[in-house]
């Protein structure tokens, strides 16, 4: 198949002709980077190239008539014809295109225009950024990230996950690829490799600013280099510099994670896309969401570019997980993706995407449980010769307690995110959830519904008694909820928590949101300052929610987070919520280690324990762990003690890093709500550097110093993300939130 590629750079076109291959390899549409940098056609902040609406068609087919080629004057097209005729097969030529008619394009099976961003107004220099759009007869050309391959290896509840990002430069000029992507918020990112063919270069953890300086120097001098930076605990930026035309560079990231037990199963969540975030006016440190062609326009330090959902992306996801619980599994299931579950010869359970690959547009959620008569806890240990400590991770769950106490009257406040990102399926799921919540109210409860988007408002001036008539009022209010505007979550928080709860009532606040905001720290601080005696239960609604925010809101509010997929009636989730609220909570927790020299247990401030949610702790001990530990706490005012036997531990070498990650998380959590967050920086950085972990203050950098690529560093190309399933592009990305 012959393919004609046109790359538009303002007033000139670069033309590449004669690619014979069908596939990706060998096809090299020209980006004309050098031409762009030399010429005056690039539109940077200081440029004054006038806008020419409709100049750049995204797709030319040979059957296209001249009428469809808006902005191509007859004269310009004529020159393209001559250039093509003069070109040798597989030759790349760069010309200023002047062509008279498009009919000559019949010599080509495909004609593709790669568009340079028009009207870009951000503060980067000439030649640095471009938006690439390419599409052939309904399918997109490969963009710089072809594939993400995820391989998980789970031992009981400790996951070791390798993420391979396969970058490829399909263009005719050198590029730097930039990709903003998610990882689980508790991931201990501990290894990083840049792979060039058979060469594998291990990255080094450095202080963030130092890593960036090294990367920029390597990039500017033409070396292959890659940089992995944490933007949020669950959002990372990958940069790969100096990818030459046709070249492939893989990046391998390894992380460890302890998986939590939730409602009867271990749960492994692999996020695959960062949802489009809203940032309040005036903020600059958020996570921006922009459409292709509008790169660097959000004004935020981190920015995700989203594909127009009408344009199929070529980035594909493969995912496989092996689970070994040391025993048969009662079940392993995945509701988020079609999967196959098989047994391997070694007795492990293998879970893979049924079709081999999928679109990275939603969280992968795997749930599994070991067979047997109920989960009783788990312990893993590792002896570290460098420190002389035995590191451990323990999942502890006290038995359920029957408490004969009259239920306390409750004030149930439901806070519903009605911003634009919730429009469509998320709001439908939210309404189903709300209806179920209202049906479950007790006559002794009072309730209030607060909606927020740009502003917050409530169903009534004060909470209403949960009478049948008032519940009907609530249901009608829910039915009328509509979505629009931004996610001014702080207003919702203040509306929900700003008033004192009625005396004698326990206030329960339930947030329902996708969590698509970029100012997490502001939100967590607002929760911390206003929560008082209330408990906060956060519900993530959608296919790829901001789990970091939702988990942390619940932590700060001494509640728990849960997640409502789009295609569920939410019955199970709401029943679990009410079960948690209605069953006694074990508070004021303390461990008795029976004389063992246990140190540095994380989390430092033990949370309250809810039914169905065991506590995961990390720590280290000099010597042996005792045969059992005692957990002390209170239910109401009554003290309780539980002796919890520690069974035969499994061994896992990742426990040192997981302990360090857990400690970093505690420090980061404290930092997020502290008025002096900088105080925590040295401790976080020291831990991360000592244990070789990515963090807010440390990054991985890898440089291949053995060769210099030709030319300058080329154009920076952001890898566009898929829109999360169920989220509307029009209300989140296109409406310039």
């Amino acid at each position, binding site marked *: 198949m012959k393919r004609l590629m046109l790359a538009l750079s303002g007033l000139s076109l670069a033309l590449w002709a004669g690619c014979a291959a069908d596939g990706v390899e060998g096809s090299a549409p020209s980006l004309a980077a050098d031409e762009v940098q030399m010429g005056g056609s690039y539109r940077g902040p200081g440029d004054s190239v006038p806008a020419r609406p409709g100049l750049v068609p995204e797709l030319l087919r040979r059957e296209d008539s001249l009428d469809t080629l808006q902005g191509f004057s007859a004269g310009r097209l004529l020159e393209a014809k001559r250039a093509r005729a003069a070109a040798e097969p597989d030759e790349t030529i760069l010309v200023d295109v002047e062509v008279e008619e498009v009919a000559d394009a019949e010599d080509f099976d495909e004609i593709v225009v790669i568009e340079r961003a028009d009207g870009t107004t951000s503060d980067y220099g000439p030649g640095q950024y471009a938006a690439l759009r390419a599409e052939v007869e309904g399918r997109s050309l490969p963009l710089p990230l072809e594939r993400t391959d995820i391989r998980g290896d789970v031992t009981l509840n400790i996951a070791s996950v390798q993420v391979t990002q396969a970058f490829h430069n399909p263009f005719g000029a050198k590029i730097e690829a930039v990709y903003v992507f998610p990882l689980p918020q508790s991931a201990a990112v501990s290894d990083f490799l840049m792979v060039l063919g058979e060469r594998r*270069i291990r*990255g080094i953890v450095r202080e963030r600013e130092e890593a960036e300086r090294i990367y920029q120097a*390597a990039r500017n001098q033409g070396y292959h280099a890659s940089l992995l930076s944490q933007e949020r605990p669950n959002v990372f930026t990958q940069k790969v510099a100096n990818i030459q035309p046709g070249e492939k560079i893989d990046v391998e990231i390894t992380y460890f994670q302890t998986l939590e037990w939730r409602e009867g199963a271990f749960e492994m969540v692999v996020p695959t896309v960062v949802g489009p975030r809203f940032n309040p006016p005036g903020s600059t440190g958020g996570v921006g969401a922009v459409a292709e062609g509008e790169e660097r326009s959000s004004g935020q330090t981190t920015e995700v570019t989203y594909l127009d959902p009408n344009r199929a992306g070529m980035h594909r996801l493969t995912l496989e997980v092996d689970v070994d619980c040391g025993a048969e599994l009662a079940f392993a299931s995945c509701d988020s993706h079609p999967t196959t579950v098989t047994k391997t010869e070694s007795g492990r359970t293998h879970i893979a995407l049924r079709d081999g690959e999928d679109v990275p547009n939603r969280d992968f959620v795997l749930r599994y449980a070991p067979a047997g008569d109920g989960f009783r806890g788990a312990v893993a240990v590792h002896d570290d010769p460098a420190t002389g400590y035995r590191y451990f991770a323990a999942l502890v769950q006290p038995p359920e307690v029957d408490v004969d106490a009259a239920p306390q009257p409750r004030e149930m406040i439901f806070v519903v995110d009605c911003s634009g990102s919730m429009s469509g399926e998320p709001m439908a799921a939210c309404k189903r959830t709300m209806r179920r919540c209202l049906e479950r109210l007790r006559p002794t409860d009072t309730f209030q519904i607060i909606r927020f988007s740009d502003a917050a408002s409530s169903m009534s001036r004060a909470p209403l008694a949960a009478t049948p008539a008032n519940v009907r009022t609530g249901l009608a209010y829910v039915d009328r909820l509509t979505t629009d505007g931004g996610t001014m979550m702080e207003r919702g928080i203040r509306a929900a928590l700003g008033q004192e709860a009625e005396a004698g009532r326990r206030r329960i606040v339930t947030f329902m949101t996708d969590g698509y905001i970029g100012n997490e720290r502001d939100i967590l601080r607002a929760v911390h300052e206003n929560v008082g005696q209330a408990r906060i239960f956060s519900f993530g609604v959608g296919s790829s929610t901001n789990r970091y925010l939702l988990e942390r809101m619940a932590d700060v509010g001494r509640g728990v987070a849960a997640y409502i997929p789009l295609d569920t009636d939410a019955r199970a989730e709401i029943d679990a919520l009410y079960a948690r609220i209605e069953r006694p909570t074990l508070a004021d927790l303390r461990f008795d280690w029976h004389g063992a020299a246990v140190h540095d247990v994380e989390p430092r401030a033990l949370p309250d324990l809810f039914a169905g949610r065991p506590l995961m702790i990390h720590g280290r001990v000099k010597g042996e762990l005792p045969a059992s530990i005692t957990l002390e706490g209170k239910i109401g005012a009554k003290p309780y003690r539980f002796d919890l036997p520690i069974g035969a531990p499994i061994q896992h070498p990742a426990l040192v890093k997981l302990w360090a990650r857990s400690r970093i998380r505690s420090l980061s959590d404290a930092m997020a709500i502290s008025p002096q967050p900088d105080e925590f920086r040295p401790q976080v950085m020291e831990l991360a550097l000592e244990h070789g972990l990515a963090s807010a203050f440390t990054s991985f950098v890898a440089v291949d110093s053995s060769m210099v690529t030709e030319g300058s560093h080329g154009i920076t190309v952001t890898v566009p993300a898929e829109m999360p399933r169920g989220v509307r592009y029009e209300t989140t990305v296109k409406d310039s939130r």
Partner: protein
Amino acid sequence: MNRTARLLALLLGLASLLAAVPRSGRTPVPQGFTVLELRIDAGQGPLAGWQVEVRLRGAKLVGIEGGDDEAFRDAPRYDPRALRGGRVILASLAAGERLPAGEILVARIHVLVEDGAELGFDIVGTETVRPDGRGFVGRARLALPGDKR
């Protein structure tokens, strides 16, 4: 203790256990990025694993790459705790059954020479092991590419 465990135990030992066999080079190089090649002479027997402490002066470690032999092609590990203290400790276990002997290029060390500094490098200590886990005195040599000293 099986073979792998013995190898691991050896390789995870810290520099205090290493045999100090200093080798140094002081070849001025242009500012910027450069690569150092780490070779180990395993003598007549096969090399199953190694750990080397390198002292860099005027340069930062920016990447670690494996060597040419298939057994040591994977990127060696480094000790982040040691790096925090300004020491570069690298280690690798051979992969596969065919283990090399003689002088072997086991790693390429990518560094950034700091502005205005002169690159200096020493090998502070070396630990090498045979497939049965026995240690032996392997000689390590660190040099710029093409430097045969």
